């Protein structure tokens, strides 16, 4: 099974994205960090749609890809509205939550492109994710030394109240 991947920033629902993406590859061509991979969705002929494998190279929210997308498969939005997914922090694994460890790692907090908003310090010293502000870029998952934080892609998240998504 292929590792879970993210869609680039500005993506709407998976169904809408696939209906709009024409595999022009411009998102990958303009990506500053070469984190967008164009791989077929179905065997050889499923169209090369852009994917971000956050374990290999996460998105740094430069937002150039969504600005050039000609079909609005990726909407031209601000980094805070990237909507790629949501980070979920495993408190049982995160060393910052193990008070007896005496370690203050903070790697996810320090590296988060939306530092202080998406990942903030609860009580001033324990990293926590504010789901509604998280862009789902995957940087936290990439930098976490003990795999205590994972990003759930938008397409795997349950629809919010009143939101139609397939």
């Amino acid at each position: 099974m292929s590792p879970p991947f993210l869609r680039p920033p500005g993506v709407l629902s998976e169904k809408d994205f696939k209906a709009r993406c024409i595999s022009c590859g411009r998102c990958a061509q303009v990506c500053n960090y070469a984190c967008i991979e164009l791989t077929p969705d179905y065997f050889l002929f499923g169209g090369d749609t852009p994917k971000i494998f956050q374990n290999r190279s996460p998105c740094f929210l430069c937002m150039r890809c969504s600005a050039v997308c000609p079909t609005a498969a990726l909407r031209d939005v601000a980094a805070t509205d990237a909507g790629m997914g949501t980070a979920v922090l495993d408190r049982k694994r995160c060393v910052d939550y193990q008070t007896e460890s005496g370690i203050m790692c903070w790697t996810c907090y320090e590296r988060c492109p939306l530092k202080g908003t998406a990942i903030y310090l609860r009580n001033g010293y324990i990293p926590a994710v504010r789901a509604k502000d998280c862009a789902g870029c995957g940087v936290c998952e990439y930098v976490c030394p003990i795999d205590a934080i994972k990003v759930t892609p938008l397409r795997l998240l349950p629809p919010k109240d009143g939101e139609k998504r397939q």
Partner: protein
Amino acid sequence: MMPPTLRFRRRLVQYGVAGAFILIPFLNREGVHLLSGNFLSFDFAGLPLADPLAAAQVFAGTFTLTPALLIGAGLALATALLLGPVFCSWICPYGLLSELVHARAAGALPRTQPGEMISPVSLAPAQADSPHLGCTHSKLNRCREAAENNPGEAAGGAAVPYSKERGRAFLRAPGALPLAVKTAVVCAGLAAVLAAAPVPLLNQLSMPGWYSRAVQHLALYGEILPGAALMLLAVPALEARTGKRFWCLYLCPQSVLLALAGMVSPKRLRVHFRRRSCTCRADDRACLGACSLGLNPRSDAARPEPLCSNCGDCVDVCRTRGRALSFTGHAGQLPVGKNDAALPQ
């Protein structure tokens, strides 16, 4: 000195475009983004260009179109409206590959030269009975006289009277069936997108798309795109085997909208046949043989042949003969070359 042939100029453009689409992804990789994209959607220094069929599929799937797609597809269709499907013969890199493969496959076939006599023995009985057998370029006047007296046979085809029949002649043209097949493929693809298909399926049948996507992959990831490798090897191999450009004729869905747009305006750029000027014998099929798509340039149809992409190969052949074939358009008759301004009337 003869001016360069249309084919020479066309090859320059074709090789230039094919080379540019190899260079562009590598320039993009180095941070130069003045030009970006592939044959499905391209950005030319801020000017959007798009495959009209890709735009149609997005519209069928979402009932919305972005300004970039609308403008890009509109520009492509407007070009076809004025110039016919010139993309296929002047721009498309797969068209170039297909032509080269076809030329190689057909290389063994004998070609007639101006004034060359064909032995009556080698002709079919009906052709051997032609009153113009033996008519050569040196007997120009006699041929013209014969052509005036019996225009249909002199052209090597059935006489088509100037009537409604002439207007409908394109239905009997060699390109009618291939266009119908391609249109059916496009309709099926669009219907699938409308019904349930999750992705724009017809993009997977875009050979220029595969070409540019293959180079994109190579530049971005240093990998060969398996689907592109399969398509770009298998389809030309099949065309070489069959000796026909069947993909461009029967399958290429990208050319359908361009061909249909070209049918809208009867005054768009097209190859015009002046029967009176034709000096070739009925059995001399040089211009017909020059058309790699197997179309008939000696057509009296009021409307342009939909699949004719104005490559000019037939016009090139005719340049050294009676100059009966030339380009006409909104601006009237166009000279074949810079030294050909005074065409024989």
